[in-house]
């Protein structure tokens, strides 16, 4: 009951003190873009209008409920229509609606205006992670995959939950403050939705199509969101994290990212040792494969087949490379060729072929993946 009464007090405070509105958990998140601020204000306005109508209508109703009771000796009147009143309560709501539609129309048009961005980023939804490609502007060419970074033990209750439980990722999106960022969304498998509440952006990511949205965040900071369209088993576990940083910090981040990508490219060109492949493969597996195929390699059949003892994994390497690169259309098995480097794919395939009861002893080299891509 303590909980309920605390909430009742908080709700009361929210309704009475506008100052509390901004940081409360009872309202939309504090807006970080102009659009989000417009939405926030529009919602407050709508709420007040609705509250006003609510008080009038139910004031009348409860007045009647209290006073026009048989037990109080009320005798029923016989009226059952009144043209003037009926016209009034049809026309007045229409006028109120017109008043509401005007600001909404302005915001819709502004949200749709994705012209002249400073930076364009493509967000691709995968089951269950986001891939990002910086397509235009400073940082062009950067691409990475962004996975949930909350450890599995926290989800299963075997470890204490961190502050940003389920809304933290390994590779956040980084953008400079004050720049117009256009986000193109698409997906590789099913429909996802790229949602960042503080930016007022929610755009479905539709496989085979490109949609767009934009934001311009002025305040530096970390902003968090989630996938907003049911996309299968781990829909609740593919958050979005955006860091808005200063121009200098952004330029530095771009340089670091580009250096890391160059290093990854050279890693694909050399020969790897067996132990090194298995070790790196375990990390790639944990980041990309474990949600479906499970840490014990047993999968969750029938939707997610086991890898331990699998015919594909124990069969010809070329067959497995093909599946990993191109995926299995119509299933959650993504085409990892677009997501991971040659070295990552070689490592994870080597790992799966030499873990659990799988003991092929084979090392798959990045060069084999590069060759398979060429086919």
């Amino acid at each position, binding site marked *: 009951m303590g909980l*309920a009464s605390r*909430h009742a007090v908080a709700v009361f405070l929210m309704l009475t003190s506008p100052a509390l509105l901004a940081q409360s958990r*009872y*309202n*939309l*998140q504090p807006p970080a873009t102009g659009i989000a601020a417009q*939405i926030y204000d529009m*919602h407050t306005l*709508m*709420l007040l209008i*609705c509250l006003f*109508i*609510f008080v009038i*209508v*139910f004031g009348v109703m409860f007045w009647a*409920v209290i006073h*026009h*009771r*048989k*037990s109080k000796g*009320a*005798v*029923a*009147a*016989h009226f*059952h229509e009144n043209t003037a*009143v*009926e016209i009034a309560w049809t026309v007045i*709501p229409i006028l109120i*609606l017109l008043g*509401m539609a005007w600001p*909404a*129309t302005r915001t*819709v048009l502004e949200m749709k205006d994705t012209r002249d961005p400073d930076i364009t980023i493509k967000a691709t939804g995968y089951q269950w992670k986001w891939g990002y490609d910086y397509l235009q502007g400073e940082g062009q060419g950067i691409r990475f995959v962004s996975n949930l970074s909350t450890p599995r033990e926290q*989800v299963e*209750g075997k470890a204490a939950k961190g502050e940003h*439980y*389920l809304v933290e990722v390994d590779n956040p999106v980084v953008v400079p403050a004050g720049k117009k960022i256009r986000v193109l969304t698409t997906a590789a498998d099913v429909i996802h*939705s790229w*949602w960042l509440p503080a930016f*007022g952006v*929610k*755009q*479905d990511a*539709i*496989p*085979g199509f490109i*949609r767009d*949205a934009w934001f311009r965040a002025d305040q530096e900071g970390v902003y968090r*969101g989630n*996938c*907003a369209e*049911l996309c*299968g*088993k*781990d*829909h609740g*576990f593919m958050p979005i994290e955006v860091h808005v940083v200063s121009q200098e910090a952004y330029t530095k981040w771009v340089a670091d990212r580009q250096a890391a990508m160059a290093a990854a490219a050279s890693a694909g060109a050399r020969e790897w040792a067996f132990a090194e492949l298995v070790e790196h493969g375990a990390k790639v597996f944990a980041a990309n494969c474990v949600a479906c195929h499970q840490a014990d390699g047993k999968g*969750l059949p029938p*939707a997610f087949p086991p890898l331990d003892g699998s015919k594909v994994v124990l069969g010809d390497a070329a067959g497995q490379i093909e599946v990993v690169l191109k995926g299995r259309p119509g299933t959650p098995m993504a085409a990892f060729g677009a997501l991971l480097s040659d070295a990552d794919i070689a490592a994870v395939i080597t790992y799966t072929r030499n873990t659990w009861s799988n003991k092929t002893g084979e090392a798959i080299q990045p060069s084999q993946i590069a060759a398979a891509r060429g086919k």
Partner: protein
Amino acid sequence: MAAVMSDHAHGDHHGPTGLMRWITTTNHKDIGTMYLVFSFIMFLSGGVMALTIRAELFQPGLQVVQPEFFNQLTTMHGLVMVFGAIMPAFVGFANWQIPLMIGACDMAFARMNNWSFWLLPPAATLLIGSFFVPGGATAAGWTLYAPLSVQMGMGMDMAIFAIHIMGVSSIMGAINIVVTILNMRAPGMTMMKMPLFCWTWLITAYLLIAVMPVLAGAVTMVLTDRHFGTSFFSAAGGGDPVMYQHIFWFFGHPEVYIMILPAFGIISQIIPTFARKPLFGYASMVYATASIAILSFSVWAHHMFTTGMPAVGQLFFMYATMLIAVPTGVKVFNWVATMWRGSMTFETPMLFAVGFIFVFTMGGFTGLICAIAPIDIQVQDTYYVVAHFHYVLVAGSLFALFAGAYYWLPKWTGHMPDERIGKLHFWCSIVFFNITFFPMHFLGLAGMPRRIPDYALQFADFNMLASIGAFGFGLSQLIFLAAVVKCVRGGEKAAARAWEGAEGLEWTVPSPAPHHTFEEAPVVK
């Protein structure tokens, strides 16, 4: 018709007894009872799923079920409640009440009526049975969006066939209702003298006939995409996943009104009875109902504001959706005006009816807020929407069903329902309902997506509160069961006119209504 009637021309029931009576019955009252019992069983099944969902969401982390099964539960909860509980319950009311209210001896197509009902148990078996096949039930959400629904296991196919069968049942039921109302009204009962419940059902029946085939088409396309190599919803084959949503919501939005218009009808019967005053604005009620039905065909894409349609599309669907607030407002104003200067008493049906107006209107307001496209983009697919549609479907449709059940139970059983139990049911329901669903508005505004088995820590306390409320609400529904069982078994004898202010032909026949009523049509002046 004549042949059916001559089989048991007089007095009470003469056909087979026991189970065969129920399997072979063509009597609208028997069939109405079966619909109501069926829908209550489905209501309890869907409720158990809801409580399992709320148990998992009681606190952050995964404790009770795994994500895959969680998604099956949310999906099946929706399908079972919409197609198994709410829709059949209203058809049950239509079966019992429409012939009694228009002075007809039975439904127009009595054998088809039997068939419409008996399609439902096999459909429900397919649907619920899908939990037990490899891969489990469909986990694509009750909206069954492609391409996610294309990925599912065979549980999805069972759900598709179940929807086909339930659709056939609904269409036959709807045709039956249209023909009964248009052809079998007592002499003198013109359309504009018809009780409002019959009007709302007539309009609902047309909606059903219009949109159930659309849903059948959508799920059939999913079926052929799954198994026969078509690509209606796959861009790789020239299709479009968003097309599924357009087709689904072209069904789905009128479906929302299919579930609420008959509720409006029930409330419009009850309020005048207990206010002892005729319904205010009868004609405008009819026009408002028709306007809502017509507008419902031009608002479907407000469920899809985040798919990225062009600005003009967003604006059109936003304006059209906002317009629906006008006729809906007219209805609420009319009910309040009916109560104004009445001579009111608050027996259980009236409590539920007033509770309906109060809580449903809150759902109406959040609906208006959701209609504003930019705000909708923030709250779409969040708990705000979950709160909104439970305010209109639980506090709306379900409360109206309870109101109607308490109102007509005397006519069905011959006994007055126990007021103490009924009032306990009402107060528990409305309090726990609000504890469950009101905090969901805050959750949604603050950014909690729907259909997730686990959530970030800032949502923890409201989820706990909602879960506590949900268990209270779920258990409260057993009070309803107790009230009905008690009423069936005995209680104060009901007069023909069971409620002092009740008007209409159904109150001219004895309570309980004899097996055959109005074998000679009454004359309405």
